[in-house]
């Protein structure tokens, strides 16, 4: 388990380094993700400790954004004032996003099928 974590931290560190030095627009962890993906594509397999740690992160990804979300306490008055705007924006937007993405794919799948 430690082995997999070390691998991830090293890729993350590399990403942070490149982000600070060369490409400040992109968050370091995203660059780390891309580097690791490139590495995996070249290697052709996920080693077992890495796969294990990655799976447990995926399972409990939600835990990691609790600390930041608790900060909602600082915004409660603001959110209360604009409760309608926030609810409407989130609700309508998520429905449109899912519907549009699915319809675009359906369109392409149908076209590929017809050809």
């Amino acid at each position, binding site marked *: 388990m430690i082995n997999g974590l070390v691998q*991830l*931290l090293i890729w*993350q560190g590399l990403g942070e380094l490149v982000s600070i030095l060369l490409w400040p*627009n*992109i*968050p*370091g*962890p*995203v660059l*780390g*993700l*891309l580097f*690791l*993906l490139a590495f*995996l*594509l070249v290697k052709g397999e*996920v080693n077992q400790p890495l796969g294990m*740690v*990655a799976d447990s*992160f*995926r399972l*409990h*990804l*939600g*835990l*990691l954004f*609790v*600390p*930041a*979300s*608790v*900060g*909602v*306490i*600082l*915004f409660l008055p*603001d959110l209360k004032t*604009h409760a309608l*705007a*926030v609810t*409407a*924006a*989130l*609700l*309508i*937007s*998520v429905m*449109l*996003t*899912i*519907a*549009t*993405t*699915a*319809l*675009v*794919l*359906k369109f*392409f*799948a149908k076209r590929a099928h017809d050809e």
Partner: protein
Amino acid sequence: MMNERLPIAEIWVYLSGSPLFALILTLATYQLGYTLYVKANRNPIVNPVAISVLLATFCIYVIDMPYQKYFEGAQFVHFLLGTATVALAVPIYRGCNSLKGKLVPMTLALLIGSAVSIGSAVGIASMLGAGDNIVGSMYAKSVTAPIAMGIAERIHVSPTLTAVFTVATGMLGAILAPFIMNFLRIKPWWIRGTAIGVGAHGLGITRAFSVNEEAGTYASMAMGLNGVLSAVLLPVVVNYLRS
């Protein structure tokens, strides 16, 4: 005995000054939420993150602990967000095999999907008169939380509100997606998976995996690709819109 009554106040001062209290609060509330979630057959309404956030927020409100103080302790959990982002490479890699021939439609669908997501959320929020803080935090809400917060820092909006909107989006998406798909009569699992990955990120994936393995794989990949594309493009788009 000079001091037979244990000075509970002193223990409290010690505990609340160390990171321990915030860590216990974060992990224990999440554990409770997760247990309830599993008990409820992984119903997306019983969301462990939402339960944990509600309970933890309520606790620090009741004991009057400043958020900054809480975060000092909880930052150890927060730090791992970056590491978890890097770990997303694994599900993307695993999905790559099934991607052949679908890369172009998927990229296009992702781009159009996220454009709709941002356009509608930002548009509706600003039309209904929400402040800059709220409107700004709508940009990255369809991206998986760790990346969304990285983007929020880059485009100078509140990472906190972004995280909250992201969690809410994931919950709503995971609950509503099956109804939307059935209404639109979309059957192929890979399309259903991709759409839920774009619209409802992490929680959508969990939902997709519980229904169908193929849908879950595509959802993971869609979420990862969406995150990467958004991280690259959003700062550029936002800077352009603001200039």
